[in-house]
């Protein structure tokens, strides 16, 4: 196995490991508001998240940025809670500040926090050859994220269908309501898990 593939495998396993669900929950919170036809918007936001975490991953692994892991581990659930809250509070994004563009911006900023979380372990181990491990790890993370998002989208479509079928006739005529209910449910679940993690990881 080449070094690139080995580290891509490591990155892929890391992001898709259900035992470390914090990054998966963040992706779920990011994707929760989108309908199937909005998949381009969702890919934009996830790509912005990747850009963010790639920047801090590179800075932290090369030693240019050193952040206490206790603070990072606390900030990761904070980003999840903030994203889920945004899902619940903002109802019309076309009239929100910066229109639809602000979501990729905050996904990139939150990505900076998650990247520092990925980096804490890699930095210690890879004190010498860095470029290929870093590139491979990032490619693996990206592939894993896309798979998580694809599964989330399929689950959301199924959930919307279940909500529509289970709801009353007056609701059935308004499919937007199913999307709003699904967003509400996913965001509440994600937020309650992350809020508990936030309290458990409180560093001060």
């Amino acid at each position: 196995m080449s070094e690139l593939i080995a580290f891509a495998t490591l990155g892929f396993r890391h992001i898709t490991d259900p035992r470390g669900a914090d990054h998966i929950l963040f992706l779920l919170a990011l994707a929760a508001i989108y309908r199937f036809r909005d998949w381009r918007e969702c890919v934009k936001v996830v790509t912005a998240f990747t850009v963010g975490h790639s920047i801090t991953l590179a800075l932290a692994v090369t030693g240019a940025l050193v952040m206490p892991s206790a603070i990072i581990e606390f900030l990761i659930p904070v980003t999840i809670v903030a994203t889920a809250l945004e899902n619940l509070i903002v109802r019309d994004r076309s009239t929100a500040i910066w229109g639809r563009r602000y979501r990729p911006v905050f996904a990139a900023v939150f990505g900076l926090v998650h990247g520092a979380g990925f980096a804490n372990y890699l930095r210690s181990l890879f004190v010498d050859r860095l470029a290929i491990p870093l590139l491979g790890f990032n490619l693996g993370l990206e592939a894993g994220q896309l798979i998580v998002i694809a599964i989330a989208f399929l689950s959301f479509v199924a959930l919307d269908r279940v909500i529509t079928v289970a709801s009353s006739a007056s609701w059935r005529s308004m499919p937007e309501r199913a999307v709003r209910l699904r967003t509400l449910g996913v965001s509440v679940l994600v937020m309650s898990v992350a809020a508990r993690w936030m309290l458990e990881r409180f560093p001060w």
Partner: protein
Amino acid sequence: MWRWVILTLAGLTALGVLAPRAYSHPLHTTLTEVTVAPDGGVQIVLRAFIDDFSAAIAGNTRTVRAPVPTPSDTAAARYLARTVGLTDAAGRSAALVVTNVRRTGDLVWVTLRAPALRTVSGARLTNRVLFDRYDDQVNIVQTSISGRRQTLLFTKREGAVAKSI
């Protein structure tokens, strides 16, 4: 309808609060480099996080601050004998000896040496270091033998699989 919505949201909140304890999502890995020394002997340099490695040697189930093992540390040698193995093409085990242990920051670097194998071709390695501590442990092994570089991944799921170096 709203009653069901509120009940569902309350259920989801309870589910979230009762979710398993938070994992800080660390990467459980070690990095090992395998090279053939000029005298033909095989050199294995293992890097691991000191707290995990020390705790594994001590047989603890929780991460503790234990003293850095030394080359003469029999517990460390016993642990490595249990978890790292090298066999030649005929399946004969090579005697691995801990020759150096040093610490840099959070890491411990352990050097093991094996006498020259008759032929490195067909030699196989096992690396189960820290498998006893973490189910998601992945040990990365980079080999550089006769100008040929390769990377191997050892996971707990695969068990004690020996891989060609």
